[in-house]
């Protein structure tokens, strides 16, 4: 349980890091929070020759919010993004999902960009990035490119990033008008990776009827899965029967069994959790529209904000 030997570099400037990454080539690994990489090194599942520590590149430590969405620098810890008041206002799904990422102690060190690059199919933030249609900005000695979420996740623990590229920021689009989001997951123990998790996004029309319903899934496929559930519930009022969404979702997924859950149980959870987040997101959207008025007294179904 000890990492094998490697050379360690700790640049303080972004361009220095990019040059080093280009120079060291495929034998180098980037070290961000290390909350996924250190276990891999200790178990000798990875044995890079060089480690490039980005923890002192102050330039990458930011969360910046605009009307269009939230930009998260590669050094922003999960905990910093979770607490950021601006980010909560612009896209409330971020803090709701981050509260489910591991334990607070892990979130104090782990980075949101690192978790996206790590591309674990059981991780929350890749699914959130995909649902929202966000993107990753990557830099290398060849320049900069923006990779949209739908093209970023290639397989379990495999992203579209080149070996010579550093992910410098993630962009999460803002909550659209007349919309609400919700997140729910089931795990064996609080703080564990989820057996199944769902993020939901609902947009209502002026009559509080559903015009868009979408959900993003973790732990049900090799890469984050996004389903458009609008057909199942379109035109229904936000507080009507929305259970067709769960039915459509559970028919659409094809989960694998593992030691934590059978495929059938996962499919069942997809249905149940989908309904929870779609109902939760629809209620939030209604509150958004009515400004806490008419819908405030309505019972909130058991979904996270």
């Amino acid at each position: 349980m000890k990492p094998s030997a490697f050379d360690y570099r700790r640049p303080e400037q972004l361009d220095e890091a990019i040059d080093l990454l280009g120079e060291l080539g495929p034998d180098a690994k980037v070290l961000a929070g290390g909350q996924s990489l250190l276990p891999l090194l200790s178990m000798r599942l990875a044995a890079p020759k060089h480690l490039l520590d980005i923890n002192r590149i102050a330039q990458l430590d930011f969360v910046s919010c605009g009307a269009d969405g939230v930009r998260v620098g590669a050094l922003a810890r999960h905990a910093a993004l979770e607490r950021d008041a601006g980010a909560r206002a612009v896209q409330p799904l971020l803090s709701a999902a981050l509260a489910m990422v591991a334990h607070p102690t892990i979130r104090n060190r782990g980075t949101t960009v690192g978790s996206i690059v790590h591309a674990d199919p059981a991780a929350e933030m890749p699914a959130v990035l995909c649902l929202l249609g966000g993107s990753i900005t990557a830099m290398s000695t060849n320049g900069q490119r923006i990779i949209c979420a739908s093209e970023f996740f290639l397989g379990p623990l495999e992203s579209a990033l080149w070996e010579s590229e550093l992910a410098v920021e993630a962009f999460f689009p803002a909550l659209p008008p007349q919309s609400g989001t919700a997140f729910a997951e089931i795990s064996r123990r609080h703080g564990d990776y989820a057996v199944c998790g769902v993020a939901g996004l609902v947009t209502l029309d002026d009559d509080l009827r559903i015009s868009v319903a979408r959900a993003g899934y973790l732990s049900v496929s090799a890469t984050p899965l996004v389903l458009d559930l609008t057909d199942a519930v379109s035109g229904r009022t936000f507080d009507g029967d929305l259970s067709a969404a769960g039915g459509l979702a559970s028919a659409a997924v094809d989960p694998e069994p593992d030691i934590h859950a059978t495929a059938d149980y996962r499919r069942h959870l997809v249905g149940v959790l989908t309904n929870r987040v779609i109902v939760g997101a629809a209620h939030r959207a209604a509150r958004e529209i009515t400004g806490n008025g008419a819908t405030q007294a309505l019972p909130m179904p058991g979904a996270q904000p």
Partner: protein
Amino acid sequence: MTGSWHELTLIVNEVPLRTTVPARRLLSDCLRHDLGLTGTHVGCEHGVCGACTVLVDGVPMRSCLLLAVSVDGQAITTVEGLAGPDGELSAVQQAFQDCHGLQCGFCTPGFLTTITAGLIGCPDPTADDAREMIGGNLCRCTGYLNIVAAVLRAAELTRARSGEVADAAVDSGQVP
């Protein structure tokens, strides 16, 4: 290949300590083997059990998931740094004693550091807050109930002690 070696300074419990380590040295091993501070315990070595939790610049982190070289120059608080200079138990340590919050004690250093920082962010926890605070730490002995009680007791003791400090300041005329 031996990899690179690095000379570093860690400010451990307010004392600057210098040491030279290979890049691959985990902070947990650096504290225990290089610096001789064996209070930090190592259970799982992959971030799950919480026994190795220390404070880095006041923030709880897993020392088994940090490279020592990565935190060069930073302030580390280990369980050895919690008691007062005269050996007086900290509020959290005292609460663990009062509430019987430990049995074998293996997990205890990680709980004490986590709760010490947790009570700063959440000085008046409910039992649910206490459970959330210790959610990332495993204990195989106590069944957690006494640890939850110790979190609540520690909050009480902290308030009482800061009251005493305030009273003492009033008595000595430092505060009107």
